[in-house]
């Protein structure tokens, strides 16, 4: 940004009830984005709670004791907010962006949502909506192959259970069960309020003190023990498909690992949309419509993941080419030109995302939660540009692809399909 770096200001505070608040103030912004990150997700669910984190996220939009679901939606709309929420294995995030003068009202609304009334009628109605969401993803083979693949790869570890839950698990989520999970996980010490853009810090803190007075409780620490993952191949079939879809999982590094940036760069070199190793191996020759790699850093461990889509008959060859390409990188390393290209490309992407307060919000939050400190766009870009290739070589020296696991989804079982092989 041409906004001088010293014009940006980082604010951090912790309230008496344990709630943490961080901000990145940008006087040049035309809006303010506000988010609440609850450090809970599907990996924090007990076996009988499968899907509850995401279900609760939906139910928070159904209102608190003084607002109906319709009231909440209309209140957001009346502020001209862009808003939504998402749930992952590890975090549930509620967020919105408005013009600066409406920031305080947005903060009121977001904090009110997190004390949901959980009325029975709303719970039953919203259950239908989530069941439709589950059905929607069942119709998307790229999502389905990851859901099935993760459950096979991570085995009994909670990270392998899908975020949405299953039709059966959703039906078992009674209102009282949802409330008990909320009480256990939505404690003030387990939440972070994030502000980005133009806001009044002192006023926001005073407002939050008032809004969260009486919030109490402490969350149990998360069980961060890593999964014991399997290698090899496995798969399943779905007769209505016409294409083959494959998901690859290999060991990566955790959220707090200093090599997290190197892992993201390595994934970029291996499987960015264009000009990556897998692009030239599989997409450019027209063997696959898509071959992308990314790094998914989790709490305590991480994974490199890849998605492939191709014609069913080509799958054995495509998988072999992919495995060969990854093995070659592991043996021979990353060419320095590819590394520098990935650095520049990632740096531009970060700068672009940093143009808007909404684009900054999740980065500000993750930077604070994962590394204990908010890093500006400029600092993050510098870190990307200065990460030496030697860090990627250190990651590759652990031979992550020796243990890679591939899960395939095919129209039907064929002699070539890994599903029928011993794995």
């Amino acid at each position: 940004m041409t906004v001088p770096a010293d014009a940006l200001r980082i604010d951090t505070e912790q309230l008496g009830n344990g709630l943490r608040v961080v901000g990145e103030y940008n006087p040049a912004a035309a809006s303010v984005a506000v988010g609440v990150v609850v450090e809970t997700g599907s990996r924090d669910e007990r076996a009988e709670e499968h899907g509850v984190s995401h279900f609760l996220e939906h139910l928070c939009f159904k209102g608190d004791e003084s607002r109906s679901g319709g009231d909440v939606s209309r209140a957001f709309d009346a502020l001209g907010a862009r808003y939504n929420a998402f749930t992952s294995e590890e975090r549930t995030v509620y967020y919105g962006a408005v013009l600066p003068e409406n920031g305080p009202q947005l903060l009121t609304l977001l904090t009110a949502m997190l004390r949901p009334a959980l009325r029975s009628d709303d719970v039953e109605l919203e259950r239908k909506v989530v069941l439709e969401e589950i059905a929607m993803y069942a119709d998307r083979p790229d999502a389905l192959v990851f859901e099935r693949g993760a459950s096979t790869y991570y085995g009994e570890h909670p990270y392998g259970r899908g975020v949405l839950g299953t039709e059966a698990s959703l039906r078992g989520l009674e209102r009282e069960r949802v409330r008990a999970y909320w009480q256990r996980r939505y404690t003030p010490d387990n939440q972070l309020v994030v502000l980005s853009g133009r806001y009044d810090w002192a006023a926001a803190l005073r407002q939050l003190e008032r809004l969260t007075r009486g919030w109490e409780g402490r969350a149990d620490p998360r069980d961060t023990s890593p999964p014991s993952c399997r290698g090899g191949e496995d798969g399943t079939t779905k007769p209505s498909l016409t294409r083959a879809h494959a998901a690859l999982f290999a060991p990566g590094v955790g959220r707090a690992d200093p090599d997290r940036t190197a892992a993201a760069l390595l994934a970029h070199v291996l499987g960015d949309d264009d000009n990556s190793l897998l692009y030239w191996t599989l997409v450019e020759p027209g063997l696959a419509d898509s071959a992308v790699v990314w790094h998914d850093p989790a709490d305590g461990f991480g994974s490199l993941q890849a998605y492939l889509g191709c014609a069913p008959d080509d799958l054995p060859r495509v998988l072999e080419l992919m495995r060969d390409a990854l093995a070659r990188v592991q043996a021979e390393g990353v060419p320095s030109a590819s590394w520098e290209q990935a650095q520049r490309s990632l740096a531009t992407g970060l700068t672009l995302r940093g143009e808007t307060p909404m684009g900054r919000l999740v980065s500000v939050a993750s930077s604070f939660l994962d590394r204990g400190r908010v890093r500006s766009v400029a600092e993050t870009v510098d870190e990307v540009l200065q990460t030496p290739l030697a860090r990627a070589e250190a990651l590759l020296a652990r031979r992550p692809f020796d243990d890679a696991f591939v899960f395939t989804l095919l129209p039907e079982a064929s002699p070539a399909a890994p599903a029928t092989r011993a794995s």
Partner: protein
Amino acid sequence: MTKPAPTLFDRTLPNGLRVVVEPMPWLATVSSSLLLPIGAANDPDDGIGAAALLSEWLQRGAAGRDARAQAAALDALGVRRGGGVGREMLSLSAAFLGRDAAAVLPLLADVVKAPGLSDDTFENVRALALQDLAAALDTPAQRAGEALVAAYFASHHGRSAYGLEAHLEALSAAAVRRDAQARLGPGGAVLAVAGGLDPEPFMALLENYFGVWQGPSRPLPEPRRRSPHASSIEAESAQVQIGLATPLVGPGEPGWYPQQLALAVLDGNMGARLFSEVREKRGLVYGVSAGTRVVRGHAYLAARAATTPERAAETLEVVASEIRRLRDGVERDEFERAGVQLRASLVMSGEASGARASRLASDVLHLGRPRGLHEVDQALAGLSLEDVNEHLAASAEPTFTTVTLGPVALSEAALGPAVPAATVPLEARA
């Protein structure tokens, strides 16, 4: 508006290329959007998919650099690129740091001025286009989207941007190259750039690199609609995909702004009617939407929903009745929420260079000129509830083209009688 309204620089170069530049001096980044009037709608009749092939082929080298050298040159400058092809437009977008403009712009210009289009890359391009077509057909939502457009248009706008399998297989490198020579020109093309740039020197760079681009263009056909009808496609899927389309007032016509406001009442956000009636109150769907789409001066509303089979008929009925009910007018509180939302969203779109560049390019395409944020804001601010309701009262009743795709064919009762699809002129809409 918290910043002074930025000035727009709008020029047509002697070769016919329309160039629009909007400085956003607080940004380091610059985004560009180049739209060329090349798409499935003006593909040769025996070469449906030629635009899809060309779009991919343009990524495979330019000005003597092969595909890898071209990609390496762009990546060395950290250029993020995107694009694709639709029914009317081939788009090439890029984002980079403003300080690198003098090195990046010649590389971007080479893609259209001196594309490689070499024989040795063509078979890979064809294979990938066939893969993309097959992948699109593997997702029910995407299939239904294609089917809705095909059912709505009688003109070539109903063609899939992915092309036809048989044509993709039959087209030769020479044929696609000839086709490119006949329509890869600057006439009718728009290049919009927004971000951290100094407008006069930047415009000079654009003139320097894009001004020497030459070549003919091919006109796009006039859109024509099929007569409204309903069709069901059987497919094995967990959900039934529902699509409805009906004409709207076109951009630039009187009534455009009141219509935009009314459509925000219908589907602006979670407090809007569609979300509220279909999801919030009835729990029928996870996703429901109704968006404005524009081709060559014609606008239409495309509404989409997906639900499990036993609830498909009710979902279709509720979506259709909410669209019809708009003509009865909107309430004051709805009007106010929609206005605030559209105006806030406008300000926020002005913070991001990519959003600005693509908005400027689509303005030129659909209105013949770019609009500054201030102009749109003034137009929205000037609307009264009465303006919106008068527009709605005078608007024509929706005439739906309906498509469903899923495990059950919806009964006639739900879809209405199946009508043979004759072609009607689009002006039929009052």
